[in-house]
């Protein structure tokens, strides 16, 4: 039987506010345990939550970016359950009335087509703390630094039909939230966490199959592998006459498998009800206008602009707008170098090549955008040739010094003095009398190819510094 996969994603995006969603404590990552938890985060008797406006503005930005309805009135609700890293015994979330309603994003399929994926809703909530099971023999340690960190939970429609589509969608959401600057996108630190609802059904069947929820997917690779595993598992169960059980399953990256965490029967009744400590969140048009006034350019718009403004190919524009960091870097290079196409080539070929080889992210590049721009500028203004530039690039990568300093110190400046070039050309011609004669006797169609030999010799003699254009012209004239 042929099976169709149906996937919906829930993505928890940690928002970039300085302080927590309901308290003034810092959200900085990596502090000593329990040093960034105030009385509110600790759920002390008598404390009350006060909503962080910054979190609301970030949710509004996201909703606007996915063309969703922003709820003029949304309600915070309590999700009640007991767990030691949940200090109040409930999580403040949004349930029936979320701040962001139905929206959508577009993903690029492998066949080059674009597919629209529905976003059901996005709601604001607070994160829980962390339980530390290691290092405390016979005990569990509790770190509440993360408790109260603002999250935006983004829920997709079950519109995704393969693990690849799920990854493309997750990457698109990642791209949008990092472009907007509402999330740092750091998956290692848990700023972007994904759960997948997965089911299969016979092709042609309208009704959804029973789904399982996959947890603990903290990279795009794990997302893809977990879904692939789970789809296969479900098909195996069904084809051997069994039934899929609705349950939560944990992905184990070491074993590359999913295993049951809890079934529906074991699931909590969260007893949601509106949080009486917080009034309904009412947003007016002015608040939305003010929030989106300075909305950063979104990936799609920036890609189109790169094509138009810089004359880049669709492919180059796509690569250079993949992340906001890349696009910002590129524009900073262009601002210094002037030559947009040359800048694109240098960034995509030399810089990305070197980063790849070193296993570094763009943010970790030893060469800043300004420094790369200065190098590209020296190519564009004929100070050095492209070939010399590669040597300079390597030196910059190693030493962190500027292109101009390296060019100066090593005397790499291109020879453009025609007298000096002519002297070298004459020398080369004199040393290669036989080749000169061969050239002159050759079929004119073959001559351009043969010219390359003389150019090579001249460049070699000038240690690559002679201006290749001048060398070519001069040689052609002298060999006539």
């Amino acid at each position, binding site marked *: 039987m042929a099976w169709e996969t149906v996937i919906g994603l829930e993505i928890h995006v940690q928002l970039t506010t300085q302080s927590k969603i309901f308290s003034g404590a810092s959200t900085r990552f990596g502090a000593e345990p329990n040093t960034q938890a105030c009385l509110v985060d600790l759920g*002390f*008797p*008598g404390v009350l939550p006060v909503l962080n406006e910054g979190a609301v503005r970030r949710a509004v930005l996201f909703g606007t970016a996915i063309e969703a309805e922003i709820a003029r009135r949304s309600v915070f609700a309590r999700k*009640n359950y007991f767990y030691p890293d949940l200090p109040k*015994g409930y999580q403040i979330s949004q349930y029936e009335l979320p701040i962001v309603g139905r929206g959508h994003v577009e993903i690029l399929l492998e066949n080059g087509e674009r597919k629209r994926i529905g976003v059901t809703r996005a709601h604001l909530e607070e994160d829980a703390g962390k339980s530390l099971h290691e290092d405390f023999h016979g005990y569990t340690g509790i770190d509440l630094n993360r408790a109260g960190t603002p999250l935006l939970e983004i829920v997709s429609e079950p519109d995704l039909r393969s693990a690849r589509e799920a990854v493309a969608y997750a990457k698109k959401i990642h791209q949008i939230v990092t472009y907007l600057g509402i999330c740092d996108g750091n998956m290692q630190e848990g700023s972007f966490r994904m759960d997948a609802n997965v089911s299969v059904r016979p092709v042609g069947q309208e009704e959804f199959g029973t789904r399982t929820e996959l947890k603990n997917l903290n990279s795009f690779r794990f997302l893809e592998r977990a879904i692939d595993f789970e789809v296969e598992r479900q098909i195996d169960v069904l084809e051997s006459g069994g039934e899929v059980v609705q349950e939560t399953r944990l992905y184990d990256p070491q074993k590359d498998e999913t295993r049951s965490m809890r079934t529906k029967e074991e699931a909590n009744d969260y*007893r949601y*009800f509106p949080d*009486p*400590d917080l009034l309904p969140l009412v947003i007016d048009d002015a608040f939305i206008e003010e929030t989106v006034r300075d909305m950063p350019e979104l990936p799609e718009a920036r890609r189109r602009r790169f094509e138009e403004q810089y004359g880049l190919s669709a492919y180059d524009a796509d690569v250079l707008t993949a992340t906001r960091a890349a696009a910002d870097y590129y524009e900073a290079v262009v601002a210094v170098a002037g030559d947009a196409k040359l800048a694109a080539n240098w960034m995509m070929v030399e810089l990305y090549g070197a980063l790849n080889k070193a296993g570094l992210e763009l943010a970790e590049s030893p060469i800043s955008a300004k420094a790369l721009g200065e190098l590209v500028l020296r190519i564009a203004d004929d100070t050095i040739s492209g070939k010399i530039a590669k040597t300079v690039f390597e030196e910059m990568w190693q030493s962190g010094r500027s292109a101009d300093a390296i060019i100066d110190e090593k005397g790499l400046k291109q020879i453009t003095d025609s007298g000096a070039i002519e002297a070298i050309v004459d020398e080369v011609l004199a040393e290669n009398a036989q080749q000169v004669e061969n050239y002159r006797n050759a079929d004119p169609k073959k001559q351009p190819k043969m010219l390359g030999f003389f150019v090579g010799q001249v460049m070699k003699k000038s240690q690559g510094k002679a201006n290749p254009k001048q060398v070519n012209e001069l040689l052609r004239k002298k060999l006539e």
Partner: protein
Amino acid sequence: MSELHQKSLRELGEGLAAGAFSSVELTEHFLQRIRNHDPALNSFITVSDREALRQAGAADERIQKGEGGPLTGIPLIHKDIFCTHGVKTSCGSRMLDNFISPYDATVVEKLADAGMVMLGKANMDEFAMGSSNETSYYGPVRNPWDTERVPGGSSGGSAAAVAARLAPAATGTDTGGSIRQPAALCGITGLKPTYGRVSRWGMIAFASSLDQAGPMARSAEDCALLLSVMAGFDERDSTSVDRPVDDYLAALEQPVKGLRVGVVKEFFGEGLDSGVGASIGEAMKVLEGLGVELVEVSLPHSRYSVPAYYVVAPAEASSNLARYDGVRFGHRCEDPKDLEDLYKRSRAEGFGAEVKRRIMIGTYALSAGYYDAYYLKAQKVRQVIAQDFRNAFDQADLLLGPASPEVAFRLGEKSDDPVSMYLSDIYTIAVNLAGLPALSMPAPRAHGLPVGLQLIGNYFDEGRLLNLAHQLQLATDWHLQTPEGFE
């Protein structure tokens, strides 16, 4: 000169300012009275005498420098539901018997800033759940008018202490009548402000959408002085209202002639003790003598207020009390086997029977499949009740009725019958559901025991409530009567 403990707050303030006595003397006087009389009443959970004398000394310095205000140097007692920095804040529960708060509630902070001296923390029903002060982990409070009788609850310690002149003033909280009912049963004046008028920051939550702090003292004038300090917007409480505080002292002196007061028909029916009814009737005659116009009004849905309250309040409580899990503070059982054992035994040991009953009721009401039928329905009833009040306020400036259907009952009389206990708040609960301000003040006694006259105001109309109560108290001496043995 009358005894210090018989003086009103205004008189005490004047005496302190004039140097007739110092705050330390005044504080020592009350601490001595507490030592003498509280063993019979049990109105205090904690007497913070050393801290009180330190605060009194500081108040005296302020007064000497001429930096004192009208309340500087005057002692008071806080209900043990308010967090007090460095002082045990138990909420009447074993669960918090070991809890020393690391911060002050806004109410505590404001009254301390005004220079008031905290004598200690008042006994109360556990987590404010009760109408007799019998659910306290620290034992029941006794009514100074008859120590075999309850003081009412949940602010029973505050009411008894003020009635017995162990403190000139107290704070209380009112979720379903917890200021007004004990004020009525102990013969003092207590005001529950409009929901949102006083900050809830640092006030341990019972039912967040109903809880409101207010003053408890012997007269409306005293309450006006206290409320002037307690009221106001607090950015730490999202449900507090950002609106200027009225001048309650100026309001006291407004004329009341021609004021229309609605007599709530439903509060005078079956279940009202005839002696209490007669007492309220007497108070109404005096009001008419002051030129007040009495009109009959109806709150047709008020009979639904008790059932609606006993869904909403326990539902919120079941969630509010989830934080008492033995993990971070409060009672933790000995040698827990595992997490579940830690939760179960810590909570089983830490909470008393009434609190457990309400947690169970509330958890049930919020459960999947019951939420719509109970919680949502109860919230709709609140809307209907609020509409009843709006209609009534179309006909009257203030409303009137008894605060409690009967005088103080005997200890243990209702302990085995929670529903009968719940019905002692039948006249007060609707006010909380609607979020309105209301006060209880002494009416003539019945059966030798205090009776509370309840006045209900429109939203933020505390000034007018205090105005009428003050004018009535100028014309009568019901509020000045002191229980025998405590003069």
